[in-house]
């Protein structure tokens, strides 16, 4: 290996360590600086457990919905033949470009007291803001693009010939989707689901605006970190952060296991 290539590798590794691994290592160090007990107590706190439950609930609704939407959207973008296709393609990326805080504020404007739906919601006694529905809406919004983004290039790559072959063999559109299209894009879907899940668990900005961060009620895991931090309960903040980081690492491991499959398929 040439000297310049070694240098390049060192530079890349050094940069990654500084930017990514350094902060994570610090987190590990500080969470256990005063023994395991501080972090453990914080994780066993009933509000913390509730916060994880809220995060999980939001993810359990957002992930299946966005998976379904992502597949349909991918099919529409790649296989569809209608005006406005380009518009859909561009809109799918919107949540990636928009700051989550802006998403939160716009949800607030829509469902708040003076918003378009606000009046009707109050009249019918439906609580959206400062409750689970708003958390779910915000989570769905920010994690929307990932499945579609994975599915679109894969659908383009596999082309339409296999589907047309299925038609000539007598398969209906529905049968073709289940037996040919979906199995062909399954790794892209799984990969998209993993990314969507990670994004749902980590969401902070949009949820912070709409949920109201009510302890034991509308607080999510990420909001709980902020809460503990502000209350100067650092061991707790680090402990919860660490739990979130570990989930992220698990997701990462899952992703690296899935990637080679995707190429082989």
């Amino acid at each position, binding site marked *: 290996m040439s000297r310049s290539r070694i240098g390049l590798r060192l530079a890349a590794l050094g940069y990654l360590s500084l930017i990514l691994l350094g902060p994570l290592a610090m987190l590990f160090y500080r969470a256990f600086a005063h023994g395991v007990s501080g972090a453990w107590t914080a994780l066993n706190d009933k509000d913390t457990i509730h916060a994880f439950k809220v995060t999980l609930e939001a993810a359990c609704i957002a992930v299946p919905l966005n998976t379904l939407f992502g597949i349909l959207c991918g099919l529409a973008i790649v296989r569809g033949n209608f005006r406005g296709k380009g518009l859909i393609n561009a809109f799918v990326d919107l949540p990636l470009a928009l700051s989550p805080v802006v998403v939160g504020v716009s949800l607030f404007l829509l469902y708040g007291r003076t918003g378009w739906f606000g009046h009707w919601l109050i009249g019918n006694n439906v609580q959206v803001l400062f409750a689970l529905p708003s958390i779910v809406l915000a989570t769905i919004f920010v994690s929307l693009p990932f499945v579609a983004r994975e599915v679109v290039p894969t659908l383009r790559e596999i082309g339409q*010939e*296999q589907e*047309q*072959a*299925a*038609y*000539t*063999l*007598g*398969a*209906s559109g529905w*049968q073709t989707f289940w*037996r*040919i299209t979906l*199995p*062909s894009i399954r790794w892209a879907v799984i990969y998209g689901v993993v990314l969507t899940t990670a994004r749902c668990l980590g969401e902070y900005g949009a949820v912070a605006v709409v949920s109201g961060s009510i302890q034991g009620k509308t607080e999510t895991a990420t909001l709980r970190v902020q809460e503990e931090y502000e209350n100067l309960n650092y061991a707790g903040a680090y402990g919860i952060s660490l739990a979130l980081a570990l989930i992220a690492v698990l997701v990462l491991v899952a992703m690296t296991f899935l990637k080679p499959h995707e190429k082989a*398929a």
Partner: protein
Amino acid sequence: MSISVRNVTKQFGEYVALGDVSIDVAEGSLTALLGPSGSGKSTLLRVIAGLEQPDTGNVFIDDRDVTGLAPQDRGIGFVFQHYAAFKHMTVHDNVAFGLTIRKRPKAEIEKRVRELLQLVQLDGLAHRYPAQLSGGQRQRMGLARALAVDPSVLLLDEPFGALDARVRTELRAWLRRLHDETHTTTVIVTHDQEEAMEVTDTVVVMNRGQIEQVAEPRELYEQPANEFVMSFVGQVNRVGDSFVRPHDFEVTRVANSTTREAMIKRIIHLGFGVHVELVRDDGEPFLVQMTRDEAEGLELQEGQIVYVRPTRETTFS
């Protein structure tokens, strides 16, 4: 079953793929759609299959108007140039697909798949995936898959186009034998005139979305309908207003009143035949074919001056 196409047109944007095309394919025949790329031959096949909808016109299979029917309901088998193998299924499941969709009893499916794999000589490879097969094997699987549902017509879109020359020749001969046994009405799209001439009973020559001629292979070569067919099917030299096949020349070493002077530029030995590239006295290049014995008898050499006379000319008014 017979196929009949009536006044079909198909445009892709501004591009006219088919301009008012009508053909009849006789029951039990093996017909080629022959033409250069962009001639509309594949589009015509896909219109027959229902994979493309014509802008105007009708398609009949066995006298039934199928124009509005989906490909599923036309009773066809289709073989794709790039195999369109179901990559996530084994060879067995690929071939069984049409029968599984039709919910046939399991025992019947197994029996039929076994028969078909034997027919296409893939019996040992039932549990392989398409990625583990060669191109020729994949296309044989594609054929078995199409045949599994007992199609009334078999449509093949440049089926051997992506294969190497030796495998192509093998599969051509095999397709001909298969047709002789089953007599399924078959339409094959090809840009290879040799393939069309060798395999089929009837050749439909297409060019720019139009049909130029429908004829038996021999008639096509000997009585081409126009300039395009003459020059597309086989090699041809242009001599003034007429056309001469390379083998329709007499070459001599001595001049007479009917001959023309030419210089030998290159002699190409192709086993039995010899190709001689010549330049006429007015600078026009042309090609003459003769047997090896003829070339040896004349003692031809590159750079030599010879005298040539066309023995058979074709003129189109």
